[in-house]
C-alpha cells in the first residue's frame, strides 16, 4: 500500500514537470528536446515501477483506487507552482477522495 501511495506522489511531480514543459513547446523539435518534458516522462515511468511493485501483493480493488491520492498532490502543486485557485468545489472533491481512501484502507483485509 505504501508503494502505491509513493507512486502517486512521484507521478504527481511528473505531471508538474509535464505542465512546466508543455508551456514551452512551439515545434516538434522543442517537444523532443525539452528537459522538463523528459523529466516528467521519467518520473511517470519511475512512478509506474513503484506502482507495479506495490500491486504485486494485495488486492487490486483496494490498491488501484488509492492512486487517486495523486489528484490531491497535484491539486497542491498546481496551487503552489502555477498559482491555480483552490475553489470550494475542489476542496470538497479533495475531502471525498481522502475519505474514500481511508474507507478503502479500512476495507482492506
Amino acid at each position, binding site marked *: 500500500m505504501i508503494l502505491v501511495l509513493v507512486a502517486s506522489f512521484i507521478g504527481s511531480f511528473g505531471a508538474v514537470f509535464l505542465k512546466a514543459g508543455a508551456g514551452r513547446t512551439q515545434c516538434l523539435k522543442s517537444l523532443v528536446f525539452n528537459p522538463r518534458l523528459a523529466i516528467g516522462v521519467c518520473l511517470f515511468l519511475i512512478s509506474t515501477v513503484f506502482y507495479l511493485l506495490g500491486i504485486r501483493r494485495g*488486492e487490486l*480493488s483496494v490498491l*488501484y*483506487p488509492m492512486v487517486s491520492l495523486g489528484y490531491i498532490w497535484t491539486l497542491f502543486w498546481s496551487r503552489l507552482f502555477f498559482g491555480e485557485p483552490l475553489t*470550494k468545489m475542489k476542496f*470538497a*472533491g479533495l475531502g471525498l477522495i481522502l475519505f*474514500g481512501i481511508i*474507507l478503502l484502507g479500512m476495507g482492506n483485509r
Partner: protein
Amino acid sequence: MTNAAADLFSMTERAKHLRCVAMVFCCTVLGAAAQMFFKAGLLRMPHFSVPALLTNWPLLVGLVLYGGSTLLLVLALREGELSLLYPVISLTYAWVTILSVWRLGETMNAFKLGGVAAIIFGVALLGRGNRA
C-alpha cells in the same frame, strides 16, 4: 447567424463533445483492462528482475494497453472540456472494482464499496471545480 446555422453549429459542437466522451470511455475500458493484465503478469512473476519483466507477456500487453489509454486521453483532452470529461475518467475505478471481483476473485465489502464511490464522486467534483 440564422437559426438554421446556429442549430448546425450547436450540432457540430454536440457531436464533438460526444466524440470526446466516447474516446474517454474507451480510454477507461483500456485502462481497466491494462490493470487486469498487470496483475495477471505480476502473479506469475515470483521474483522481480529485468529478464523476467521483458518476457512476461501479460505485463507487456498491460503496458501497451496502458500506453494506448493514455494516448487516447491526451487526444480527448486536447479538444474536450476537462470538467465534463473528469466524471467519465473516474469510470475506470468502477471497472477495476467489478473486474477485481469477477476475474481476480477478490471479495467486496461495504468499506471498499463506499470508498470507491466516494473517490468517484470526489474526482467528478474536482472536474467541476476546474470549470469555476
